Each structure stands twice: as C-alpha cells, then as structure tokens.
C-alpha cells in the first residue's frame, strides 16, 4: 500500500477554489509548512480553513491570508496577526470561533464515525446560541456536530510509505484528529521511511486514515515565543 507522492505540489494538486481544508498545528508548532507554501504558490482562493490558529503575519496560515486565499477561518484563537485583524474588520474575512476542546473533539468525532458529541464547553455563553442543550446527570451539555473536511493537511515527525504517522512532542496537537477527519488526508513528514521501519506499537495515526504522504523539503519550525531561563 504505497501512498507516497512526489512533493507538496503533487499532494495538493487537486485542491480547488472553495475547498474546506483542515490544517494541523498549534500556533506555529506542528504546522504543515511545505503544504502551506504549495497552497500559496498554487494561489487557490475562497478557502475555508479549519485550524486552531491562523498563523502570524508572515508565517503559517498568515501567508495564505496575505494572498487573500481564505474566505472563512474556523479556529479557537486568532491573535498575533495584524493582517487577519484588518481583513476581519473590513469584512473581507469571515471568522467562526470555537472552543479549543470542542474543535479537537469534533474532528475526532469524524474520525471515529460519531455524528455528534455532547460537551459542556460554552453552555450559558454565546457559543450556545441556537444549539441544542441537553442535561445528563444534572449537568448541561451542548450538541456539537462532527467536523469533516474535503482535505486534512497534517504534519508529522516520521511517516512510512503505508501512511503510518508518528508525531513529536507537542507538535502532535491537532494533527492526529484532523488526520482522521479528511475525506482526503495529506501528511507531510520530516522523515519518510519504508513500511516496516516504524514500531507498529508506537504509531499515532494508522495509515488507513492517510491518503497521500511525502517528505517535506525543509522545516523552518519558527518559534513564536522564545522563553528561556538563565543558567545558574
């Protein structure tokens, strides 16, 4: 079962204007840098992007915003991006804000074939507007629907030709759930190995969820907040 494609360009070649795309990552950590670059190069427009954050002005999804490729952004937190703010205030960009745990769990639900979940997040707030509220064991929950995307684009540390993925540290974040939630799932990895080289016990995303895989050409891995302590 060989799922390897030649490049980021090849991986995203059939994504069209108006597509709904999930992009893994938390802040700039664990984002599919190579696919984002390819999407910017390809220049497709009117995209709906589902991602926890929207990048910064000159990196991550911010690069797509700068090209005005994004029609709608679905995220939990969109600070750190002046161009984003400008487009939002001018009405060029539509934004839907979703609690982070709800976003993660809605993606997971899609991958588990669960049509909806009940979560207490947002009960009694404007997030609950128009949503079904249901009590279980005396506590109120909102009904939230599974999230599927035309394409899920994720970034892993290691992957094999069968599509199995392993993530590194907190660069895992949203990538595993999004990988399960794409009608087509594209994975870019730092290191691509032949099937059989990864420990089957340590796979985070089984290959059945991954349709295309390639090794990214390079990773900048920009740090958003470089915090350090002094050596004693």
């Amino acid at each position, binding site marked *: 079962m060989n799922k390897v494609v030649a490049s980021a360009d090849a991986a995203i070649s059939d994504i069209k204007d108006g597509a709904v795309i999930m992009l893994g990552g938390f802040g700039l950590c664990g984002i599919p840098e190579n696919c984002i670059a390819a999407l910017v190069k390809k220049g497709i427009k009117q995209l709906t992007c589902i991602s926890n954050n929207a990048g910064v002005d000159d990196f991550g999804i911010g690069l797509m915003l700068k090209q005005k490729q994004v029609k709608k952004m679905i995220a939990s937190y969109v600070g750190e991006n002046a161009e984003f703010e400008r487009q939002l205030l001018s009405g060029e960009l539509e934004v839907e804000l979703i609690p982070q745990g709800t976003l993660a769990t809605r993606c997971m639900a899609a991958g588990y074939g669960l049509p909806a979940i009940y979560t207490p*997040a947002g*009960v*009694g707030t404007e997030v609950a507007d128009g949503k079904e509220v249901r009590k279980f064991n005396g506590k109120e929950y909102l009904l939230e629907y599974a999230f599927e995307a035309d394409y899920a684009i994720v970034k892993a*540390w290691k992957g094999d030709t069968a599509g199995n993925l392993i993530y590194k540290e*907190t660069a895992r974040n949203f990538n*595993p759930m999004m990988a399960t939630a794409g009608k087509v799932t594209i994975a870019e990895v730092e290191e691509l190995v032949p099937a059989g080289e990864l420990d089957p016990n340590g796979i985070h995303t089984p290959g059945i969820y991954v349709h295309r895989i390639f090794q990214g050409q390079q990773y900048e*891995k920009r740090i958003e907040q470089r915090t350090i302590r002094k050596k004693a």
Partner: protein
Amino acid sequence: MALTKEQIAQRIARELKDGYYVNLGIGIPTLVANYIPAGIDVVLQSENGLLGMGPFPFEGEEDPDLINAGKQTITTVPGSAFFDSALSFGMIRAGKVDLTVLGAMEVSESGDIANWKIPGKMVKGMGGAMDLVASARNIIVAMVHSNPKGESKLLPACTLPLTGVKCVKKIVSDLAVLDVTPQGFRLLERAPGVSVEEIKSKTAGKLTVEGDIPEMKF
C-alpha cells in the same frame, strides 16, 4: 498594599496539594509554577498536549516542537507524556485535572466568569478557556480587583460576554482571597495593609464578611 502579580501567584501556589494535576492559564497563573511549595509534588498539564511541563529551557536548548499553551518554549520533567488535543481536553472534561488556575476580566457573585471578549474590540477567541471552565473540578481565578477606572470586577452579574457559568470556586485578587459560595463572595484573607472596608468598597457583588479576616503573609 495590593499584591504584586508575583504575590498573587505565590498565594495561589499555597492552594496546591501533593499529587495534584494542575492546569495553569496564561499570564499570572503561569507564574504559580515558580512557587510550588517544597514537599508538594504536582504535575503541570498543558492543554496543547503535555503532562509534566518543566521550566523554560536554557538558552540554546529551545525546542520548537515543545511549547506550552501560551506558545512559549518549555521543557519536560521525568515521567511526562505527550498526547493530542482531543485527549488533552478529554482528561480535562473527565475531571482528571485537580485544579485549574486562570485569569478573568470579570467574575460574578454566582461564579460566572468573563475573560475572552470585549464588545467593540478585536476578538481573538476563547482558545481552551471555555472547555476549562466548563469542566474543571476546581477553578481558582487570578485577577485584579478593580479595573484602571477603579470599577469593581467582582460583580453581581458579569457585563461582558461569559466564558462560563457558575464555575469559579475561589478568587485570588490583588486585594483579597475570596470563595464563591451560594451566598455570593465570601472574604477569606486580605492583602497586607488592605482593610476589610477597602475590599468591601471595591467589591460590587454580594460580599459576606464573617469574623476576623486574617492578613496574608509573604
């Protein structure tokens, strides 16, 4: 005198118990990690997918794949574990995290909290705050008692859009430590040199003061 941010964090750290799993929000709550009492073993959860968060790295040892929920470079402690965001909020939702500390713009006397949106200003999003407040078994809020105009932020009802309802259990402000009870705020401790009268005058929500209110010591 009102507590400094560091002192608020220091006071909150005294609420930690041995064996606690703790989620610390961005800002003052993050500072709590610097004041964990000796002999108390707690595990810090970072909702972007880590149990066992350690201090900031030494210069040159920053790892871009290893950050906290504030997107800061961090380290891990022995016994740490990484997981995805769904499991991270799963363990929060299932009540496995013993204590959540976060900041607030307003808290109501019934324990409602507002900390994510100011009408008319750019809304950055709730991040994980709504999940945390809706699920945490025990929430302590770190905040300043009044806004720069001198208006109380401990209110009969929040004026800002809510993050969660009836969830805050305790508040450590720059002036006082208060519980949130079915009868409203209850004063527990006051900042050094701050009078009960001052706290009363700066608390707009219903406030119960019973007996002698001890002064915090640092």
